């Protein structure tokens, strides 16, 4: 579609269409633009190619995947052992059945055997602060009793400090991590946690994880969407399907194993029978996705979308009877990112 009222893009050396056709892109006549014709319009592909960002990102993803595969056994064992110790000590019964959730309620004070609160004894006085040197960041965080959200929220744990010394694993610290330490005063009296609003005082934990996180790169949302829509993020590594998540501008790679899909699909029959009232009622629920096997998603989600593979590059005509045209709107179907993104010169596939 071309608007004659708008000036077509012209460059002194070569036009974008010429450069694109030379690189194997589809042909298109002009670019709609109202800017100065002397300006050079750089498509995002060129930016990525010039700066070699595409290769760098894919290389970083490969490294993240290798790190996941390399650290698979050790991390699992540590996790299992740690949780087993917690279960044996009965110190953290927070996830037992019908217990209040720890994220909504602040952890109460732990009392010692003699009934005194250890936090009050460990609470540093003002005089101690004047006599002693200014405690380090680690020490000051350790001396804050009531704002210590617990081991599960310990942002300054030894593990984190150990990892922070490693420049390869170093990630930009979230702002709230520093803010928490700044807002904490070790000398002023602190109210009882139960007297405060637990919802306001809800501890916040950064969701950025180190496992599977692409190191030393931050991804703005637009960049992440661009790479996702262009299909520049690899989908599969060996037999693992890769999923991606943008968390605080960190790209996190998820690898779904067959166990994930087996667990996720294990209740399909039960849910289907339940929602159809034994098979006599209308289907009211549907499965919208899973981690690994994507073709089952189409099968369970909508039977009419199975023929989508044969219709790549074609736009269904609404006047013709097609099961795809009967799909009601307003439902967020899974998008076919790689195949449905229209390339230059290609009409692409239009999702309903």
């Amino acid at each position, binding site marked *: 579609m071309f608007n004659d009222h708008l000036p077509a893009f012209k460059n002194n050396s070569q036009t974008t269409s010429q450069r694109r056709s030379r690189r194997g892109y589809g042909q298109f006549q002009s670019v709609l633009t109202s800017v100065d014709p002397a300006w050079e319009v750089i498509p995002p592909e060129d930016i990525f190619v010039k700066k070699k960002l595409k290769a760098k990102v894919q290389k970083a993803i490969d490294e993240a995947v290798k790190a*996941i595969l390399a650290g*698979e*056994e050790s*991390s*699992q*064992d540590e*996790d*299992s*052992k740690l*949780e*087993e110790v917690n*279960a044996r000590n009965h110190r953290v019964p927070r*996830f*037992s*059945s*019908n*217990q*209040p*959730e*720890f*994220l*909504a*309620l602040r952890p109460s004070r732990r009392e010692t055997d003699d009934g005194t609160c250890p936090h009050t004894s460990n609470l540093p006085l003002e005089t101690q602060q004047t006599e002693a040197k200014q405690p380090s960041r680690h020490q000051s965080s350790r001396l804050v009793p009531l704002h210590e959200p617990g081991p*599960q929220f310990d942002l300054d744990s030894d593990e984190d400090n150990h990892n922070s010394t490693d420049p390869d694993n170093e990630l930009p610290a979230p702002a709230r991590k520093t803010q928490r330490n700044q807002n904490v005063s070790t000398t002023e009296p602190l109210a009882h946690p139960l007297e405060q609003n637990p*919802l306001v005082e*809800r501890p916040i*934990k950064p*969701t950025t*994880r180190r*496992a*599977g996180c692409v190191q030393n790169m931050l991804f703005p949302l637009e960049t992440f969407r661009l790479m996702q829509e262009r299909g520049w993020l690899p989908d599969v590594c060996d037999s693992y399907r890769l999923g991606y998540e943008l968390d605080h501008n960190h790209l996190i790679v998820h*690898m779904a*194993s*067959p*166990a*994930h899909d*087996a*667990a*996720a*699909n*294990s*209740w399909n*029959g*039960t*849910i289907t*029978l*339940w*929602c*159809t*009232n*034994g098979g006599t*009622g*209308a289907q*009211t*629920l549907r499965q919208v996705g899973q*981690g690994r096997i994507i073709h089952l998603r189409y099968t369970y989600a909508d039977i009419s979308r199975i023929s989508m593979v044969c219709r790549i590059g074609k736009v269904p005509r609404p006047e013709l009877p097609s099961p795809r045209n009967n799909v009601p709107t307003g439902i967020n179907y899974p998008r076919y990112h790689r195949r449905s993104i229209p390339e230059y010169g290609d009409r692409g596939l239009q999702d309903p």
Partner: protein
Amino acid sequence: MVIEVSKTHESYNDLFNDATIKHFSAQTSVQVWVGVKLYDGHGGRFRCMFRLRDPINNGILAGSGASTDFLSIHQPTNIEFIIPKSQIYWGVNPPLPPTRSVVPGPNALPPPQAPGTPTDDLVLPLEELREAVESYL
């Protein structure tokens, strides 16, 4: 309803953090979250839990749902999760669609107020999950 499965690179606490921060955030309408944590060690174990959304403040509703302890992947279990029908059909104007009624077992979580009576809530037996995952651990 969201079913989140964690096997290796996501700890037990990470599951709950995901439920609170991501699935039950203000930008979503997820009402029920079911978590499954799989362990390779000790011959294969797993833990299951489910939580409901806090309709006012988002996040996990305090006191909602249930959790299991470590369960062996090779040992049958009769634990069942009873998920409220109203939560699954959240946003649907009454009357809700008819669903199948079953009698929960003695180890259903959370324990029903009237044991032995049929309910039309969604009953998810963990035995089905165990059978499905058994060959992959």
